[in-house]
């Protein structure tokens, strides 16, 4: 690892001030991607601003929707997850599991237990790895990404492989979304890295809108699949996936699998998400 200057910030505001003073500063969240990347000398920030003690950026809040006569929980709660909340904290949050179990299950299958103790949702979303899990969730849930300067709709945020709408000095503080009426996530993890070789997130919002996002397969990062969305809007079932044409165009081919293989995986994972 090249030399770097380590700083600790206890708030997003402090972190922004420290970044502003550096020519080449980077936020250190959980470090589960950034530290390995720095060790390989693929990244060499002059300054690192560690947010691990920024307690205000941590935790999950759930705002219940007015029920208007509906007795049981059926989506619509507003869920806000602080950027520095770890995957383990999301996976193990019992209140969250009651209103949005799919996000807990997704978080509990990222990497391995030690990685989940450090890795954060903010770090994952800022990095936007084309095979990461959270981008698929946020896109399908119609989430909002909150930063120290503005709110960005997930639709406008994910710009392609490792690309986001974030400015250089911008820091993610939280993400928020409405609990779906029903949601599911099917992931075929790479046996070595546990990143998705194809991950499909399906969600039906309280307004009845169906969104389907795909991670790990597209050659330009996470994307929404119009064909699957149309099929599931008409018929929310695993069997509705059968008739959908999933093209291999624009999908990744690498040593782990061809584009055609991934196209097939998308259908299989969509069915698992609906199972």
């Amino acid at each position, binding site marked *: *690892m*090249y*030399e*770097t*200057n*380590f700083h*600790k910030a206890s708030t997003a505001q402090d972190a922004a001030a420290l970044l502003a003073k550096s020519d080449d500063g980077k936020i*250190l969240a959980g*470090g*589960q991607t950034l*530290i*390995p990347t*720095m*060790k390989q000398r693929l990244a060499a920030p002059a300054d*690192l601003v*560690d947010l*691990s003690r920024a307690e205000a950026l941590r935790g999950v809040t759930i705002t219940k929707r007015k029920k208007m006569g509906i007795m049981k929980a059926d989506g619509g709660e507003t869920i806000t997850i602080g950027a520095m909340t770890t995957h*383990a904290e999301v996976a*193990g949050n019992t209140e969250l599991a009651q209103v949005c179990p799919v996000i807990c299950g997704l978080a509990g299958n990222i*990497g*391995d*237990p*030690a*990685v989940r*103790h*450090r890795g954060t949702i903010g770090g994952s979303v800022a990095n936007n790895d084309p095979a990461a899990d959270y981008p698929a969730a946020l896109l399908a849930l119609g989430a909002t990404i909150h930063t120290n300067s503005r709110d960005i709709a997930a639709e406008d945020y994910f710009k392609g492989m490792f690309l986001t709408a974030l400015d250089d000095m911008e820091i993610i503080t939280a993400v928020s979304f409405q609990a779906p009426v029903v949601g599911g996530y099917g992931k075929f993890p790479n046996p*070595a*890295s*546990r990143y998705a070789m194809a991950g499909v997130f399906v969600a039906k919002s309280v307004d009845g809108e169906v969104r389907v996002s795909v991670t790990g397969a597209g050659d330009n990062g996470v994307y929404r699949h119009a064909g699957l969305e149309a099929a599931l809007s008409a018929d929310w079932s695993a069997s509705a996936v059968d008739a959908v044409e999933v093209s291999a165009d624009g999908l990744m081919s690498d040593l782990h699998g061809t584009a055609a293989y991934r196209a097939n995986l998308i259908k299989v994972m969509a069915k698992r998400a609906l199972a």
Partner: protein
Amino acid sequence: MKIAMIVNGKSVSREVSDNTLLVEYIRDHLRLTGTHVGCDTSQCGACVVHVDGQAIKSCTMLAASAEGAAVTTVEGLAKSKDDLHPMQVAFKENHGLQCGFCTPGMIMTATDMVARYQAQGKEITEDAIRHELEGNICRCTGYHNIVKSIADGASKMTTV
């Protein structure tokens, strides 16, 4: 920069570079060489230690980030040479290792897993153990005796 933390119950403070990894701090600065470096790429888990009670990969955390934390390494588990931690005894009795290189990480992952499962009142099944061992690689045993060791150690550990 000077950083201070509590390692295995003792306060320690050392002068380190900003880019010193926690595992370098533990092995090279504190000379606690029970924690191993296997892959150095966050995959193998030989470097797992506990930071503030949670298992983490010490090759993937900066020492500076652990400033003020309580760190437990494999050296910190046994009360004495003759009074090993139940998980260490279980690995010994169940032949849960062959070359032993991965063992410190296996044991630190195992004790973290058992503590979590016991706190949540969850059953530690064979499937659960295998799932929890996702981030620990052993190239000798085929995992069978490691899984047996952890099940045995879990039955003798009381964390709650």
